[in-house]
């Protein structure tokens, strides 16, 4: 499709002789929230790391915003924001300092970095803790800052790798609202999770991944429809049906 912002073709990645990602292909339309679902070890993070240019694929092609990750990683990096699964923050700096720093790194200058940092902190409901050191934050608060940092520098494509783990329901709702608002402004999102209800709520399309392969890809509604009445079926059931295993095994 012409307005596909992300095109992934036949991606492979092995660690030693273990195949972590084994022939993954998908596309994400501009402005779409695309879900990558799968149990632990399915290869979601590995896929994201290849898309975000930090890990080199063994084979396959990735194009983001028209730029090849292999040939023009530099251009790709200016388009993306990454919220990694593991926290990637400076514990000894304040939340604000962290965000201003990463803002500078993504090309924001002086006051612009500071303003956007405050805006994103507000978005996460943490503006009154701005000056507090990350080390003193609760786990859920750290996760929210981890996500807020990914928003610095106005990326066009956001990689969210299980951003809601350990976050209370209220903050989670707040994050969902924010993602939907950003989507309205044209942001494209790749969202990984193993909470099926999150994907159901947020994603226009989902790919179900298992053992390094995509085993199903469609809208949540269509996936559910295949195995039963959509309103009575969950994506959890879909996964069970596809693999014979429950998602959390």
């Amino acid at each position, binding site marked *: 499709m012409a307005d596909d912002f992300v095109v992934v073709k036949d991606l492979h990645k092995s660690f030693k002789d273990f195949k972590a990602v084994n022939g993954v292909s998908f596309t994400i339309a501009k402005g779409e929230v695309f879900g990558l679902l799968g149990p632990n070890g399915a290869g979601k993070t590995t896929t994201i790391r290849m898309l975000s240019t930090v890990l080199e694929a063994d084979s396959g092609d990735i194009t983001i915003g028209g730029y090849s990750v292999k040939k023009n990683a*530099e251009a790709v990096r200016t388009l993306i924001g990454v919220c990694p699964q593991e926290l*990637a923050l400076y514990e000894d*700096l304040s939340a604000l300092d962290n965000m201003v720093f*990463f803002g500078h*790194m993504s090309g924001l200058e002086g006051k612009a970095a500071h303003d956007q940092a405050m805006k994103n902190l507000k978005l996460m409901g943490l503006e009154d803790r701005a000056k507090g050191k990350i080390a003193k934050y609760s786990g859920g608060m750290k996760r929210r800052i981890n996500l807020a940092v990914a928003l610095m520098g106005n990326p066009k494509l956001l990689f969210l790798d299980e951003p809601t783990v350990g976050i209370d329901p209220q903050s989670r709702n707040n994050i969902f609202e924010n993602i939907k608002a950003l989507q309205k402004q044209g942001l494209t999102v790749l969202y990984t999770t193993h909470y099926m209800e999150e994907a159901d709520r947020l994603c226009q399309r989902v790919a179900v991944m298992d053992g390094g392969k995509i085993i199903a890809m469609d809208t949540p509604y269509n996936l559910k429809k295949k195995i039963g009445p959509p309103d009575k079926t969950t994506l959890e059931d879909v996964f069970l049906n596809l693999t014979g295993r429950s998602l959390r095994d």
Partner: protein
Amino acid sequence: MKNLKQAWYIALKDLKIFVQDRAALFFSIIFPFLFIILFNSLFSGVGWEDDRITLHVTTQEPEGGISYQIIAAIETKDEEALSPGDPIIIWDKDYEADHQAVLDGKLDGFLNFPASFTQSLMSGASTGLEIYADAGATNTRAALQGLSGAITSQINADVAIIKASAQLLAQSGASPEEIQTAVQQIQTDLFSGAAAAKSYLSFEVVKVGNVEAQNASNWVIPGYLVMFVFMAAATSAPEIVKERKNNTLERLFSTSVKRESILGGIYSGIAFKGLIQIIIFWVFGILVFHVNVGLSPLAIIILSLLMVIMSSAFAIMLATLANSIRGASSLAVITSLLLAPLGGCWWPGFLYPEWLQNISKITPHAWATDAFNKLMVFGADFGDVVPSIIALLVFAVIFSGIAVWKFRISDR
């Protein structure tokens, strides 16, 4: 431009973390001074007078040459009357015997006035003094060089006086014979008698006698500067590994920060800390501990900067060699505590037996402390520490090479 700016921000960020970290500040700045104060008081007044350097001087001139007057003037007549740190100067009458003694390893070195000394001096040619010294006897060599420098510059001053006087006489219409007589008179006055003895001795105190060996700070401070600059840098290694483990380097990388900028930023951050350290060390050293920076402050500055550059590169190299934070920590502590005493940071390396001095040359510490000692204790000049400067540069290049080659942003 963008890359430089990003590196700069990374360095600033590291500096900010450092300044906010009380423990790190204490460890790299206050702690060294506690050490210095302790060791200064332990070592001060320790029998330095017994460790006086003895310098031998000979002349090959026939009796009556100017060198006879000079040596007679600088020769030590009464050891009791020497100031602390002044060398003992002995007039050996037999050049051949001294020469053979150096070849046989029985004498560290001596200063010789060549046979043509007076002649070339009077004809206006340069007056080369000769230093014969064992290649390994660096301290003696440095002291002899200091002595010869003192004598040469005094002689040059004297020759200038003679020339100026002759010119004055010529202008006032004196005949060549009259000038000749007057110049001879001035020569005798300058190079002999009480006046000469006095001027040479005073020179000795200023230049060779610069050896204020009784101030233990002169080697305690550089020793601890070398140790703590290295140690503070080395202990940044686990911080780098931590960044690799907690994914911040990877995050920077995906935020379009180039590998070079990340490396440059980390490197500058460590170097900044080192710069702060050396500035504080020298300011306190000079103002509070009254260290003597010797004849070449430039050499001191270059050596200090090279310590910072070399140590910062070492830290990054260490981080690339370690696979875990704990591993990097242990490596940092072990190398710091092993290399410091071996490299003469705790006790002056010039007191080590020769075999240990030779082994210690595998440490950058030894080259640095050796150079500082020469400059600050033995009155050496810039030229004498060039080998040390080159050695530190070589260490820095090797460490940087491995650091750049092996640096990675992630272990995954």
